[in-house]
């Protein structure tokens, strides 16, 4: 496939770009293989320079077009600009709804151009082949390809554990991805269990996701494991190796907890489809707790409804609250935080090991294990530690980013496997950062950047669904890592929390509804002006650093940056 075949019209002049809260800009629109560009007419109009839109086409979630036939084409801003007297038979408006939730409007003279542009964007934004995506073409001069890919080797993580206990070992039973296609080649498992047993246990777990170590709680030597559901099935099958694997984790008389992220009924029903739960009789030392967490389509629909409600500026106070309630997003945040706290509580307070799983073990399972670690482990709350956590518990653990983040909240396409679990995780971390403003080394800005990059990115970090696919696509060899870019000294500063001070304690959040807030910084990012909040943040930074006031960014530059793709800053060869 050639990109050029998908581009029906590459440039259009006199396109008017508008976006809520910003002055409209007129300029030349350009479509390239991966980007939508708009450069304003230099010297012309009332614009002094060139204000550019540099939008990654992958970021486009929905394209809506409206054409007006006949009539005069008149640019809406005629006050001080010479009137455009060109007669056009028609014109059209394209509304681009992006995955990062911003909404852009392009007014394009000429119906045909408009339709061409719209269909080009549609075609380019739905290219599904990973290797055709922008990260494979993006070559910033300031970064080297291999940078940032091996910052967080599991071996290093394991060394930390091995210095405390010899109960665990690294296993490369999955080196060729045959034991579990969605696990990384290396995993941490109980030292007492050999690879042969692991392979047999894997056959008893959906997708081969046998129990592996997710987190070792140094304070008391308890462990958090994760897996997928056991394939108990309607005939209540058992697997001696699986039972043994879990058995070795607990000493005699010790009790462990299995946190199943499905309801007891859903877990029971899963037996009919060959799945199920660990029956008490076969796992006598483990006690099951069911904490149903929403995922899949209901979670995606919750996200869609919330974004719809946020964008509906015509609703009155009462309808706003009832829509906020009916979309249930905050209920999901509360449930996720509560379940993560439960897992953390089992480990820290009950001094008991925990196994977390739902069905596949790639969604709510990871949500719970990753969140529990942020709550328990101060080293996950640093900028580097948090990146390591994401690598370990989301990316390498096989959260299917490619499927889950294929579409965001605006898409009209039929839902397939999209679900905003990663966003829900980021939201929960934001809630933690609000309740413990000094305990996370990174700021809200990092969480927003992660959200943006998970859905559309110039970097390869969130590509593919698992390590096996990443190997096949040579993601590590052919794309840049997001971390390499984030961790550049100049860039890194933006993501740091000026109030951070190391907190060795567990951060137990309140999960009362009064304590959980809608994440306005994300859901209203493009809807309301954040000028006054940004100024407050700058003031906090100034006070925390005790230095002179920072050079105030002009509003202009802030806005133009917010409109463009962050990648544009380092892009070469424009």
């Amino acid at each position, binding site marked *: 496939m050639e990109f050029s075949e998908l581009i029906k019209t590459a440039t259009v002049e006199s396109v008017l770009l508008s976006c809520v809260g910003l002055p409209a800009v007129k300029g030349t629109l350009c479509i390239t293989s991966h980007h939508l560009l708009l450069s304003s007419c230099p010297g012309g109009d009332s614009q002094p320079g060139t204000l550019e839109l540099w939008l990654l086409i992958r970021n486009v979630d929905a394209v809506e077009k409206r054409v007006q036939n006949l009539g005069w084409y008149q640019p809406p801003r005629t006050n001080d600009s010479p009137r455009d007297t060109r007669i056009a038979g028609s014109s059209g408006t394209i509304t681009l709804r992006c995955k990062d939730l911003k909404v852009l409007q392009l007014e394009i003279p000429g119906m045909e151009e408009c339709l061409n542009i719209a269909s080009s964007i549609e075609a380019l934004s739905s290219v599904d082949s990973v290797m055709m995506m922008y990260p494979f073409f993006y070559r910033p001069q300031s970064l080297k390809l291999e940078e940032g890919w091996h910052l967080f080797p599991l071996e290093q993580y394991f060394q930390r554990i091995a210095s405390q206990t010899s109960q665990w070992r690294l296993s490369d039973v999955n080196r060729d991805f045959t034991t579990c296609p969605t696990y990384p080649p290396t995993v941490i498992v109980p030292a007492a269990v050999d690879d042969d047993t692991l392979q047999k246990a894997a056959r008893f777990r959906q997708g081969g996701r046998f129990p592996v170590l997710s987190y070792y709680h140094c304070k008391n030597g308890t462990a958090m494991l994760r897996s997928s559901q056991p394939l108990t099935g309607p005939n209540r099958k058992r697997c001696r190796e699986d039972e043994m694997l879990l058995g070795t984790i607990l000493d005699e008389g010790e*009790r462990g907890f299995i946190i199943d992220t499905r309801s007891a009924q859903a877990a029971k029903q899963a037996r009919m489809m060959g799945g199920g739960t660990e029956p008490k009789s076969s796992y006598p030392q483990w006690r099951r707790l069911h904490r149903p967490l929403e995922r899949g389509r209901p979670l995606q629909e919750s996200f869609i409804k919330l974004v719809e409600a946020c964008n509906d500026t015509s609703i009155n106070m009462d309808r706003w609250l009832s829509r906020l309630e009916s979309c249930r997003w905050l209920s999901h945040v509360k449930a996720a935080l509560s379940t993560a706290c439960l897992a953390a509580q089992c480990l820290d307070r009950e001094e008991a090991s925990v196994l977390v799983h739902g069905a596949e073990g790639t969604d709510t399972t990871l949500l719970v294990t990753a969140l529990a670690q942020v709550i328990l482990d101060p080293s996950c709350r640093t900028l580097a530690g948090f990146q390591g956590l994401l690598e370990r518990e989301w990316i390498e653990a096989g959260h299917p980013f490619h499927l889950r983040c294929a579409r965001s909240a605006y898409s009209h396409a039929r839902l397939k496997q999209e679900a905003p679990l990663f966003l829900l995780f980021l939201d929960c971390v934001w809630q933690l950062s609000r309740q413990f403003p000094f305990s996370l080394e990174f700021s809200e800005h990092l969480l927003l950047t992660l959200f943006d990059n998970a859905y559309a990115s110039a970097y390869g970090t969130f590509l593919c669904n698992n390590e096996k696919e990443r190997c096949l696509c040579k993601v590590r060899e052919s794309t840049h890592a997001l971390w390499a870019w984030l961790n550049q000294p100049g860039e890194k500063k933006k993501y740091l929390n000026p109030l951070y001070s190391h907190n060795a304690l567990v951060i137990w959040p309140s999960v009362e509804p009064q304590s959980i807030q809608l994440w306005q910084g994300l859901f209203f990012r493009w809807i309301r002006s954040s000028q006054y909040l940004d100024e407050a943040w700058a003031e906090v930074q100034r006070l925390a650093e005790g230095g002179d006031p920072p050079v105030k960014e002009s509003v202009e530059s802030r806005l133009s940056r917010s409109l463009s793709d962050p990648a544009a800053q380092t892009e070469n060869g424009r």
Partner: protein
Amino acid sequence: PHHVRCVENVKLLDRYTNRKAANGTLYLTATHLIYVDASAEVRKEIWILHHHIATVEKLPLTTAGYPLLIHCKNFHVAHFVIGQERDCHEVYTSLLKLSQPVKSEELYAFSYNPKMSKENREIGWKLIDLKVDYQRMGIPNDYWEITDVNKDYEVCNTYPPEIVVPRAANKAVVIGSSRFRSRGRIPVLSYLYKENNAAICRCSQPLSGFSARCLEDEQMLQAIREANPGSPFMYVVDTRPKLNAMANRAAGKGYENEDNYDNIRFKFIGIENIHVMRNSLQKLLEVCEMKSPSMSDFLTGLENSGWLRHIKAVMDAGVFLAKAVKDEKASVLVHCSDGWDRTAQVCSLASLLLDPFYRTFKGFMVLIEKEWIAMGHKFSHRCGHLDGDPKEVSPVFTQFIECVWQLMQQFPCAFEFNERFLLEIHDHVYSCQFGNFLGTCHKEREDLKIFEKTHSLWPFLLQKKQELRNPLYRGFTAYKELQPNTLPFSFQFWCGMYNRFDKGMHPKQCVLDHLLSSMSQKMKLEDNASELENVKQPSSCCAVVLAAAEPCWHSTVPQHSRLIPRGQYAGGGQGFGRGRS
């Protein structure tokens, strides 16, 4: 005459957790209920001012003892369990009596003695001088004058002796207009926007009925309009819902007929009355007190209470006024029924939006003195200071304070003071510890000899300025007019007010404290440096020493990791047993 009563073995239940109840001793002093928790590692005291107590209820006997539930006007809820029925009943009857004084003289302010010299007390009362504020607006000028026409309360007994009216309105017009306005509350100036001469004026509803007219009242409005030569028209804003205003016509009251007044634009804004607001708050508090509600329970309850809808209505009205004055350059005359509730909310909010002075400590005090205290907001009735008609109680001032807080959320650098300043003021509106909020109007405060017998709140607050200031304040000139976003999502539930005493719900680390302490450290360093150069003059008011009996709401908070008890997240009957022992 009152002796301190003391009851031992009293449990204090925590509403939100299954934490073991505190065990301690309850004391009743002349002014406070004091609970000393003996079971805590750190001595913990809870002080509840009798005046703060809204209701005391005896609940059915439990295995732990006789429960006594106390609801406070500052939204503190204390759930005690007392071992002996006789003790419980005694505490109950004492509190009923102590919390509902019958005579004004029984109010705390008349016995409160901070050991301050008479001279300093008098200086304290002179701290806020409204004349200075009018001067700041440029009054008197060609169009407006400060008149003492009301010095004997002839025009209006709920207005202060000095009022600001248009120069063009002579005494006959003033007197004539006062006969046509409910309770004689004629149109007077609230705020003059110096930049363009547009003014905000306030009054009560006209006694228009279905057809009555009053020439002097029409002349009064004309004079107000003409005091702003830049605009050909003026707004007359009735802050009531149209239906309510129409219903009033049958009682000989009502609203202005546009045909009778030259060049007015009449508009209804639709803020509900005090009874609707009282019920709304009641519902809101029920939501706040729910035991482990789900997210849906909470949001549905919040919506059904209508509270944020009312807050938004007040804010919308304030924004309308500010825009009319600033953008349309038109003067606005505002009223509701009597012009002392909704009118006070809306006028003070508009001033706050238009003028950065009112966002400073001093300015905010002036604003409350001017629009609320001087203009006769009936604090005594609305706050239920004395045993009286419960239907007169309404959270009108609370709503204003909340509107200010909502603005602080949107403009974190625009106010010199922080959230605690608002809470302090809110506390003292109910505490009756200071004279400012006693009575219903200036005349009544004079009759009560407030200025001779009690202290003013403001110097006490200024003294605590360091902890009440906003570290993010960017100064007087950083923002001029504020244009808040009034879309529904901009209005948030104020956990810091309505669940203020449920510490577990609040952020576990406090940015405000952190910034304040780093600021004060910095200032100490600077002070030390400057002290070497010159000796500082202590100001007279700052020599005040606070009484030892100052309530202490911020009792020692233990390490945050201890705040979470075992089993909190287990919930839903799915709790788990012990792990290994």
